[in-house]
Structures are given as C-alpha cells and as structure tokens.
C-alpha cells in the first residue's frame, strides 16, 4: 500500500474516531477559563488547574473506542489507531499554548512551566487511556476523565502539601523549579506508559 493511501486511510479513520463535539466544547471552555484567569489571575488561579484537569480528562476520553469489539480484532495495530486519535490531543495542546501566548502579560513569569503543565497533562491522560485500551477496556477515558478532572480541581483549590509538591503554583515565592521537575517526570512517565502500551499490543499481535 502506498504512503498516500495509508495517509488517506489514517485521515479517514481520524475524522470518524475523534469526538469533535466534545473536543470543540472543551477547547472553547479552556480558552474561556484561561481568559477569566487572565482577567483576575490572583483570585481565579484555581481555574488554571481546573483547565489542566479538563485537558487531561478529555484527552483520555478521546482515546475511547466505542467499536472496540470490532476494531480490536482487526489487523490494524494499536499504534496505527493511536496515531489516528492524536489530533484531539494536539488540538487541545495547541489551544492551550496559543491562549497562553496571547495572555502571557497577565500570567506569572514562568510561561514555559505553565505551557508544560497543560501539554504534559494532555499527554498523560492520552497515554493512560491508551495503556488501558491494551487491557481490553473499550472506554477507559471516560473513567479517567471522571477521576482526573475533579481531582485536578480539588488539588488546585486545596493545594495539599504545596510546599513540598507545588503542582499548581502561582506566587513568586513558590518552588517553580520543583514544579518543572514534577511535570517533567510526569511527561517521562507518560512517554514510558505509551511505549509500554505499544510494546504490549505488538506482543499480542505477534502471538
């Protein structure tokens, strides 16, 4: 099969599999929430964490496979189907980064860390759901979203152990370096989980 045909098949699958409605709603909500944060950053900061949770949850949700019973036994491997589903995560991340660049004057002076948070959250959600898919779970993303979104909101509000683990910092006196480490480690773990999922699926196909 030529590359052009493969790409066309990938695009077709991607169009059909991406939850566009959910994606558009989340992107609009994320931009709206970030604009509110930009208007009153000191007061509204927990909404920044809530948006990160939304990104992680919806990114995971976009990995759900409603037709798993049919798709899982088809010859196309998981890496192919995962690749076809990545536009959702890319779009959410793009919306996150673009909004941050647009409102950067109103945010704390750690734009890189803030952009890293949303990007890693989206990647982590997607990776966790993909890993769950290899266990035969058809729609793990919904369950992940139902856990991760409220958990992110709660952590952003209550900031438990924020001195030791500043997940969603805002003030200059907070340990931003440690935040970078936390999110970088999360990114590393997410990549490992994604790789392990692909490996697991490849092993299944070879049997």
């Amino acid at each position: 099969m030529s590359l052009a045909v493969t790409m066309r098949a990938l695009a077709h699958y991607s169009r059909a599999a991406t939850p566009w409605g959910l994606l558009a709603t989340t992107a609009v909500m994320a931009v709206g929430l970030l604009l509110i944060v930009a208007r009153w950053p000191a007061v509204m900061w927990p909404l920044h964490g809530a948006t990160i949770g939304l990104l992680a949850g919806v990114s995971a949700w976009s990995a759900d496979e409603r037709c798993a019973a049919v798709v899982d036994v088809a010859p196309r491997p998981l890496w192919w189907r995962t690749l076809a589903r990545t536009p959702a995560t890319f779009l959410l991340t793009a919306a996150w980064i673009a909004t941050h660049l647009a409102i950067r004057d109103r945010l704390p002076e750690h734009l890189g860390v803030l952009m890293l948070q949303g990007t890693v959250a989206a990647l982590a959600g997607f990776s966790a759901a993909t890993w769950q898919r290899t266990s035969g779970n058809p729609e793990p993303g919904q369950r992940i979203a139902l856990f991760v979104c409220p958990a992110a909101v709660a952590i952003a509000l209550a900031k438990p152990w924020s001195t030791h683990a500043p997940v969603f910092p805002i003030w200059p006196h907070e340990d931003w370096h440690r935040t970078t480490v936390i999110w970088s480690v999360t990114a590393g773990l997410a990549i490992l989980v994604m790789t392990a999922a692909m490996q697991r699926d490849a092993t299944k196909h070879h049997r």
Partner: protein
Amino acid sequence: MTATTPTIVTAADRSSATPAWLLLARMEMIRYALRPAFVLGAGLTLAALLPYLDAGEPVDELSMIAPAALIGLIGITVSAQRVWASDRCADAAGSTPVPMATRTLAHLAACLVPFAVGLTFVAVSYARYLTDPPPPSGYAALMSDGWVLAVWFALGAVSCLGGPVLGVLIARMTNRRAAPILTTVGLVALAIVFQGLFEPLRRIRVFMPWTYWGGPFGIDGDPQRSIVLTGSPYWWVLYLLTLCAVAALMTLRQDRTWRSQRNRTAFTALLVTAVITCLLAMWTGTPDTIINPLTGDGTSWGG
C-alpha cells in the same frame, strides 16, 4: 405444664425484617467508602491534620478548604458514578423488586460516609482550636467560639454532604457522563467569584453552597490583613442543610411512582425555607465587615 416452643431466628428472617432500603444503604455505604477517588481524597484530607501531632502547632483557620475540595467536590463525580453503575446493574438484572426511589434513597444514605469524614476533620480542628487557638492576627480571633464552629461545620462537614448529594441528583437527571465534570468546574468558578474577594458581591455571596466568612482578604496598605465578612453563619448552616434536603427530595421525586401530593408539599415548604434562611444569612449576624486591628502575617489572597 405447658411447653414453649423455642423460636429460631435465622439470618434470612432478619434480612426480611430489615427494610430493603436499609440493606441497600449499607451496601452503598461500603461501596462509597471503597471508591479509590474517595479513599484518596479522604486520605489527603485527614493527612492535613497530621501537623497537629506537633503540640506547638496552632490550628489552621483556613484548612476547611481541604475536606470541601478533596471530599465534597470529588463526591459529585463519585456519587454520580455510583448511581450510574447501580443503574447498569439494575438494567442488566431486568425487572428488580426494588424500585428506583429505594435505590436512590440508598445512594443518598451513602452520602453520610463522606459527611462523617468531613465531620471528623471539623471535630479534630475545633478541638485543636479550643486548646491552641489560631494567631490573633487571623479572623477567628475576632469572633465567638460558636460562630467559628458554625462556619467550620458548614465549610468542612456540610460541603462533604452537599457535593455527593448533588452528584446523586445529577445522575438521576441526566445520563451524560460529562455532566458531573462540567458541574464541578462550573461550581468552582462560581464559588471563586462569590468567595468574598469582590466587595460588591460580599452581601449576596451566601447564596452559594461554599463561600468564605473571613480570611486574609487585605485592606488598603496591608494586603495580608484578616477580615470577617458580613452575614450570619448560623442561618447559613440551616440554609445549606435545607439545600441538601431540597436536592435529596428532588432526586427521590425523579421516580414518578414515588411522587405524591404530600412530598410535593414538603418540597415546596423546603424551597420556601431555603429562600428564607438564605435571606436571613445575608441580612442578619455581622452587619458590616470587621477588620482585624493587627497587621496580617500570612499570604494574602490578592485583595
């Protein structure tokens, strides 16, 4: 001589004597207590009490956000998931002898589990408050013990009841899986707006199920100064409990077979009570904002 026949009470007899909703409630309570999201939230909340193991550690007057966020907010989703899971089982079982209202009642009873954890948190914090009061530069030092208890009970315990009850209501009203997530985010956005930082909204803020009554809101020249906001927390506690009752009754009334003129009257009465107690919470109690004369020494909230 008359012989009396001993009566043997079997486990089956006992279970048939216990009302169905109570049996279900016990099961739902256990299931709720074992939900990983709840266990994690409760664990993190109770871990916030660990500093009190140090005898010299004064009580943190702003710590009530922990149970509210980690148990109450998460409870919205946990409850909704539990209801949907139980409905899936009921659907799979076909026609069940237990009506929807009975199952709903069991789910509502399970909300007592997070409430108990929230209550424990408040009880420990209040006990610490009595022995090691917070610094005089805070807001609690300006008010009576009863006022502090009412505020903490509402913020730390009632919120742990209200969130899960709201989750049951959402699950009974819609099957959309995103509903509890959107409700959580929306509720937080509203709670932040009406937390008391915006001066024009301070009087009406008490209509919200969660709002601050005092804290380092700051004043001109001292951004860390603690203040006490207007209103009566005693009426607010009543208002919140009435809101919980309204939500519970509304949830039960989703089962059409359970609806009656009597519970409709009760529902209307509760709604009227909620409006009255909310207005009383707004317009009685502390008439004007009280400013602590001592300089603030904590982190300001941007005020």
